[in-house]
């Protein structure tokens, strides 16, 4: 099990009700991790509309996750 710190922004924060959580997961990639939390929190946005950053760097959804990674899911926002 990997220990991951997850941070949520914008509508993901609203839908999950938290801006950060620590979890243990078997997810091998950010894509698998998103699928896991999407089901749990009832996220409405598909992965294709989001970007993921791991350890402060944008990553591919299929890149490998390591234990103690810091993952941020970011939806685009447009308010001005």
């Amino acid at each position: 099990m990997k220990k991951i710190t997850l941070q949520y922004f914008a509508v993901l924060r609203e839908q999950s009700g938290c801006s950060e959580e620590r979890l243990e997961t078997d997810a091998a990639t950010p894509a698998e991790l998103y699928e896991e939390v999407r089901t749990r929190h009832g996220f409405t946005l598909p992965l294709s509309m989001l970007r993921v950053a791991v350890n402060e760097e944008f990553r591919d959804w299929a890149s490998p996750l390591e234990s103690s990674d810091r993952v941020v899911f970011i939806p685009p926002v447009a308010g001005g």
Partner: protein
Amino acid sequence: MQPFAFSTLPIDTARGREALADPACGGYATFEGWVRDHNEGRAVQRLEYEAYAALAEREGERIVAEAVAKYGVQHAACIHRIGDLELGEMAVWVGVSSRHRAEAFAACRYIIDEVKHRVPIWKKEHYVDGDSGWVNCERCAQPGDHESHADHAATPAPARLHGQDHAHAHAQSHAAPDYSRQIALPEVGAAGQRRLRAGSVLVIGAGGLGVPVLQYLAAAGVGRIGIVDADSVDASNLHRQPLYGVADIGKAKATVAAARLRALNPEATFAVHAERAGAGNLVDWLARYDLVVDCSDNFATKFTVNDAAVILGKPAVFASVYQYEGQLQVYLPRADWPCLRCLWPEAPRDGLVGNCAQAGVLGPVPATLGALQAMQALKLLLELPVESAPALHVFDLLGMHWRTLKAARNPACDHSPRELQTDAIDPAALELEFPTLAAARASGLTLIDIREPWERAMDDPAGRIEWHLPLSAFLQGSTALPREGRYLIACAHGVRSLALAGRLRALGFTSVYSLAGGLAAVDA
């Protein structure tokens, strides 16, 4: 002789006269400023002058050169004392020689006015009662100034270096803000200030982000600013757009903003574009500016701004806010720098990301992001490094986190100029109003509720509309809706349904409509 110099010794006017003498000149005008025995009603005993010499000399030389060029005089010079001066001593001397007297007088007047206005010199007044205080002399009446300033534009309230309580009362109006406090920064300096004045910025949107951007750019002395906003001031804007007041409600934002900014800085030029930025006008507009700051509130405009910047090879400063959060990204026209589409290959459709309800926002959130945009724009104009590496900066002002997420060029994004997105289908053609759901059904349209299951469970447990296809299912591509049907889609307030209707039309659904105002607007 140097055109502008500081002197710690008494000014030798005879030498000055000699240096400016020229057989071609028929006139010689001078001005002398003396230390007088009172200021602001207080008896003055002596004065001390201090200057930021390197900066002050450069600015002084520029003023003399300007006077020579402007009035076509032969020779001009100015000497300013620094150090301790007694009453009656000469603090400043200006000399001008020219073919005719009129130009000599005018140039002499120009030099002394501009020196007072622009050159960073401070004076410490020692009063007869034993007290003393520093006074910023720029644009502040100096001892020996026996002229009235009423006939020229200069003189704001002086910046006090040390808090003395006798305020100067300056009622005169000014031609421009005093930039000395930013010129004093080594990264700005007089050369930087010239860059700002020669610079031009197009600002898209004069709302929560745009207001601070416009204010700080105008205040900093950016020479030309374009303001693009099609909206009018609404009462609900004021809490986060304090450039406007209640008396402006209903007026065009771009026009009101330009008037306010002209009052802030009459020296700058403002172009008003009170229309929506789009594929049809943006490239033409942006071609006339150095860079663009995107303060719009919708994805369609942001991506159009991105495309225009990429096509023209101009920098763009983007920001967006959502409740307590903000995102900031700078695009630079460099091969290694990501654009907005590198980050978001699938340009989001407005209304499909987020909630139906109008997102709430506290004023300082867009104000913070707007101030950061202004900072990045000024750095671009000053030719300072904008950031060490391309990044999306994500701010959470509730939790007070700032994350800098490194972004790279997306190899799948070719960055080559591409067709700008055409404007979406006119929303008016997509929306239908019905007083009741029964009336909607009677129209022959098939009703679809696209709210999420949790919303429906909370607001409408009975399920007024039988067919329930949540928007999230649409977005995940897991619905198969026959294209030939005639649909009326409904959500809580009509925002998401309108966006989805636009998307479905683009996908070939010819008879899909959105319930105007959503289910909140119809009676059961």
